[in-house]
């Protein structure tokens, strides 16, 4: 049987973490599933968790007045969804919607924030990893704005 602990310990995102820290993280983890079309979170709501996507596909959307929701990126298997739980004021900046049946591990952000305050080594390790996720999202957004396939480029 695949335990949550093993799945998380083997995930590249958590690579290099102490067994002790993995234990702390697993204490805040739960398996979740979302049906196609279901919202995982919505822009403006409080951000109190993040997800390790195991199967499926999730669309990150922003709401554009007059146009409705616009997908700016999709995330799939193995990717990390959500970083707003770690950065005050802990509100989501996007909608996340399952495009198809999606299974994930949800990590309770409130629980993790407390553990990070208690154990700054854990806090620093998580911050380093999430800084990388934020950088990836920024880079992807930047490339989209550049219109990389356009005629002028």
């Amino acid at each position, binding site marked *: 049987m695949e335990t949550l602990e093993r799945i998380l310990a083997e995930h590249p995102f958590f690579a290099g973490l102490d067994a002790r820290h993995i234990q702390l993280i697993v204490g805040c983890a739960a398996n979740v599933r979302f049906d196609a079309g279901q919202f995982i979170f919505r822009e403006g709501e409080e951000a109190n968790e993040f997800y390790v996507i195991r199967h499926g596909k999730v669309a990150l959307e922003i709401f554009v007045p007059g146009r409705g929701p616009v997908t*700016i990126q999709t995330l799939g298997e193995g990717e990390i969804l959500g970083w707003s739980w770690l950065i005050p004021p802990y509100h989501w900046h996007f909608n996340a919607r399952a495009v198809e049946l999606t299974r994930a591990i949800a990590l309770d952000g409130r629980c993790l924030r407390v553990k990070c305050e208690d154990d700054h080594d854990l806090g620093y390790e998580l911050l380093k990893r999430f800084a990388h996720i934020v950088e990836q999202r920024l880079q992807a957004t930047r490339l989209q704005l550049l219109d990389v396939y356009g005629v002028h480029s």
Partner: protein
Amino acid sequence: MIPRPYRISRVHRETADTFTLELTPVQEDGTFSFAPGQFNMLYVFGVGEIPISISGDPGNPGTLVHTTRVVGTVTRAMRKLKRGDVIGVRGPFGRHWPVTEAEGNDVVIVAGGIGLAPLRPALFHILSRREKYGKVVLLYGARTPEDILYRNQLSRWRAQFDLEVYVTVDRATGGWRGSVGVVTTLIPRAPFDPLNTVAMVCGPEVMMRFSALELQKRGVGPDNIFLSMERNMKCAVGFCGHCQFGPTFLCKDGPVFPYRRVKDLLTIWEL
């Protein structure tokens, strides 16, 4: 080298701004053979001559296939041509994709927009010798679902067990249920062994620059990443100096280069 007359045997509209021409020689003057990644100079009589990559199957050189995107004077005139019209062809020119050198390795093909056209012959070549390669992965990014080239072919390839095809668009429109994001976002999760991979990348230069960086982040060496530098050309044979960069002529030393060789060129806009 004088252009040889070719008759348009088929015109196929791919997307709103791209079309494919199939050409057959007006006079039987021996067979035309080319390597994947080579280009021809196509001459629209009375308008001008432009370099366009050959996008057909190198195993079937009887028909010359070119896919062109309309950007300016010559491509606009070319789009108006019909079946039966004649154009001039010089070629083939340039260095090809390293399809032979890649044997025994995984192959990752990263295409952006019209960049899929010059890479298609490499895919035809590889798929006709499939047993010689490890994993073969095609990562393709287009602006919107309507801009996706070779739709039917992509779905046939996707149904194949020995080729992994991933398509993503910048902007989802209509009922698109696939991936959204630029093509570089596909690189971290694509199934290939970076230490044993040859990557072939073609698209606008920004896209190639960021794809090469992302491939290197995954661990692909700069000598195993190949790009096609499709900048303006005139003579295509290293005479006019139009495409010269230091000692390098993009037309005859390229358009396909290992990344290391053109890395610096990617941040210089005009030659």
